[in-house]
């Protein structure tokens, strides 16, 4: 069918339009990157919300009521953004990747429908109660509502990762011809839902969400504590976030190490791209790798890099103890993912992961000495680190998704075959531009919303911009007129 708007009207776009495949991939990548921040915010905030609500209902202490009220507002704003950015995700399987939706429909349709029915409704309905129903329902119902909202968030992660894990390690199906098209037919639901990747991915992603939110909560708390050191509520929040970080950050490293071995076994091509390992054989581990020439930025072959490497340690880590283990190299494949993106994304994520462990241990030490809220340097470091959990989470997903290319379903369907054949470059470019503009606005308003909430909280605490705190001068980033 033809386009519904006259194309002459958008001739400048016509001239500059990208290929439907590239535009579709950029659009999906961009929209999921924004969406996943809000989705993981719900997942990571859930334990905080439940804890604060529980303490509020149980102890009626002012500080918990205050923390609950603040973070429920953040949760609500994040949830609205998660909803409005989530609907485009499920639509795009049809609009941009209809061949994928049709080939994989039997396998992914069920989990996506379960996600909507079991998780989204639960979250949306009981969030309504959590936000507006404090005076309308009993304490117990209110507390249960907070638990159900949190459970919904974690359950939605479960179903959506079943879909993604299946795309990485597809199982439980056979290819059959239906209506003249090769499609996947479900043969074994247990195998299809509980693929080898699923448990790895679920644990890693849920924990990544917890780390990201712990850093966010720690950063916000650190800022407020810095402005108003004697605030009981925010000292509590800071401590809680640091404790959570002490548990979750080291765990992520240990878990990630084992996860890497699993990837090497199940998706050797992706693993080779993560390590820029081209020749099959013993693999070195590049701790640090810098390109000697600009070309190496986009094709980081080991010989073009200045590396700090541990010889054969790549093999050791990938095999779980054997320095001579043979690791499959990228030269074995006809078509490879963009190695540089995968290689650098992986290093970025791992590097941040170690930084988080450092911050957690530092915080633990200060807490042990009872000086957590006095150490300005630590508070500043935590403020600076508050968005970094999301940076690690996103780059981790780039490793997973870009590393799977050229496949959309590993070894079964190529991304290029999944893109709509009726889509024109103009249409795809037009909507890509639309999504970029709208979502940039959306992210900015999310950040402003957080800023305003913090400002409001500081005012409640009696901090005025000219008051004596550690900060002498106007609030950073807040001008007098807004």
């Amino acid at each position: 069918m033809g386009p519904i708007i006259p194309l002459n009207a958008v001739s400048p776009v016509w001239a500059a339009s990208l290929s439907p495949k590239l535009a579709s991939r950029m659009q999906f990548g961009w929209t999921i990157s924004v969406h996943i921040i809000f989705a993981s915010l719900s997942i990571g905030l859930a334990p905080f919300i439940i804890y604060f609500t529980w303490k509020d209902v149980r102890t009626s202490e002012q500080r918990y009521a205050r923390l609950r009220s603040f973070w429920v507002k953040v949760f609500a704003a994040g949830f609205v953004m998660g909803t409005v950015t989530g609907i485009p995700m499920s639509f795009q399987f049809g609009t941009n990747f209809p061949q994928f939706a049709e080939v994989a429909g039997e396998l992914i349709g069920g989990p996506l429908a379960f996600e909507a029915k079991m998780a989204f409704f639960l979250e949306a309905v009981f969030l309504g109660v959590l936000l507006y129903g404090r005076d309308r329902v009993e304490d117990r119902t209110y507390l249960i509502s907070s638990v159900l909202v949190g459970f919904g968030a974690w359950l939605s992660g479960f179903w959506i990762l079943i879909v993604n894990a299946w795309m990485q390690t597809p199982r439980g199906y056979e290819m059959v011809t239906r209506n003249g098209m090769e499609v996947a037919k479900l043969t074994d639901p247990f195998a299809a839902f509980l693929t080898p990747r699923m448990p790895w991915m679920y644990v890693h992603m849920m924990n990544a969400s917890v780390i990201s939110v712990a850093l966010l909560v720690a950063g916000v708390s650190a800022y407020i504590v810095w402005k108003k050191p004697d605030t009981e509520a925010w000292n509590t929040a800071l401590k809680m976030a640091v404790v959570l970080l002490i548990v979750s950050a080291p765990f992520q490293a240990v878990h990630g190490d084992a996860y890497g071995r699993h990837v090497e076994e199940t998706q050797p091509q992706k693993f080779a791209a993560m390590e820029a390992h081209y020749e099959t054989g013993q693999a070195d581990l590049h701790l640090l790798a810098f390109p000697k020439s600009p070309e190496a930025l986009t094709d980081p072959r080991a010989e073009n890099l200045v590396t700090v490497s541990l010889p054969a340690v790549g093999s050791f880590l990938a095999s779980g103890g054997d320095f001579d283990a043979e690791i499959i190299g990228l030269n074995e494949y006809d078509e490879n993912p963009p190695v540089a993106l995968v290689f650098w994304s992986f290093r970025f994520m791992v590097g941040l992961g170690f930084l988080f462990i450092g911050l957690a241990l530092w915080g633990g030490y200060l807490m042990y000495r009872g000086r957590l809220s006095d150490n300005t340097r630590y508070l500043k470091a935590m403020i600076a680190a508050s968005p970094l959990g999301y940076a690690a989470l996103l780059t981790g997903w780039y490793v997973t998704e870009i590393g799977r290319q050229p496949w959309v379903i590993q070894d079964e369907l190529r991304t290029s075959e999944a893109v709509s054949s009726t889509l024109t470059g103009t249409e795809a470019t037009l909507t890509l531009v639309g999504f970029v503009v709208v979502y940039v606005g959306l992210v900015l308003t999310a950040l402003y919303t957080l800023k305003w909430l913090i400002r409001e909280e500081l005012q409640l605490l009696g901090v005025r911009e000219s008051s004596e705190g550690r900060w002498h001068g106007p609030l950073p980033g807040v001008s007098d007129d807004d």
Partner: protein
Amino acid sequence: MMTDSLLPVDTYLVESLPEIWFGAVLFALGMYVVLDGFDFGIGILYATRTDEHERETFLSAFGPVWDANEVWLVAFGTMLLAAFPRVYSRLLADNYLVAIGVVLALVFRGLGPELREQRNDERWKRYTDYAFVGGSVFAPLLFGMLAGRWLFGEATLPVVLTGVGLVAVSVVTGAAFLAAKTEPGLASELRTYGIGATLAYLSGVIVLLGTVVLTDAGGAADTVLSLPVAAVVALSVAVGLIGSVLARRGQYRAWLASALALPTLLTILVAILLYPTIYPPTGLLVREVVVSPLALNLVTVLGFPVLLLVLWYFKFLYGVFSGPIEGEGYGG
């Protein structure tokens, strides 16, 4: 295989399971059109209010329920994908810009009220109000056009009329919902809009179906002239007129009940126009495009009980927030 003993692999749990799923998908669509429909109506009628207190009242009615209502769209889409993947892919891919337009309109509709509450600034409120009202107009318009394309293919007039019809019926339910929950003065203003929208909607449906008969858009002329369609149209006219009388008499709760019947009947009309195909312009039949027995049995056994639970959630939610609107504004 473990599943052999639990679920039949080669036969449907009941012979008519594909048709039951056709019904289930249309049920989810109906829930969406009914529930988010009155949210759209609230958003459109919001444009007629200039008084800050009245606007806040509208937002208080909208706040606790819209997000849960919108999830029915996701339920509809994913159920369509789970049972009839080809229809899901074709429908969205063939109507690319309309489909993307729907989701972008929903972004504006959802964010407007959320952001409005964040600060006290006249200009900021004006912009977020534009987003709310604009999204509330374009989301049903484009979603209706998508439905029109589903039913009639590329025939422009029927497609546009379907979109306009969905906007009109949303105003009817929005007005009735607000009237039932607000004070008499405001309610009597709202019923004027509601009755006007009812008449516009009913004449729109008749013009639409007349056009389809005359032009045989999407090859649907014969179906439109059938008894079931005539019955649904007659019923809609009766319900619409009765509702208008109830509104005039100030019986707003009864009006609401009859108003909600209109989008329900509209969904039934869509079902009649679709069946036994499931995407008329392509001629695809329900039986041709349904997934294999094991997959459908699985989503039935795991999904249907949850659907009942979801209906209970909604009963609970609307129970908690029943009665007159309280509180000031969206933030509660």
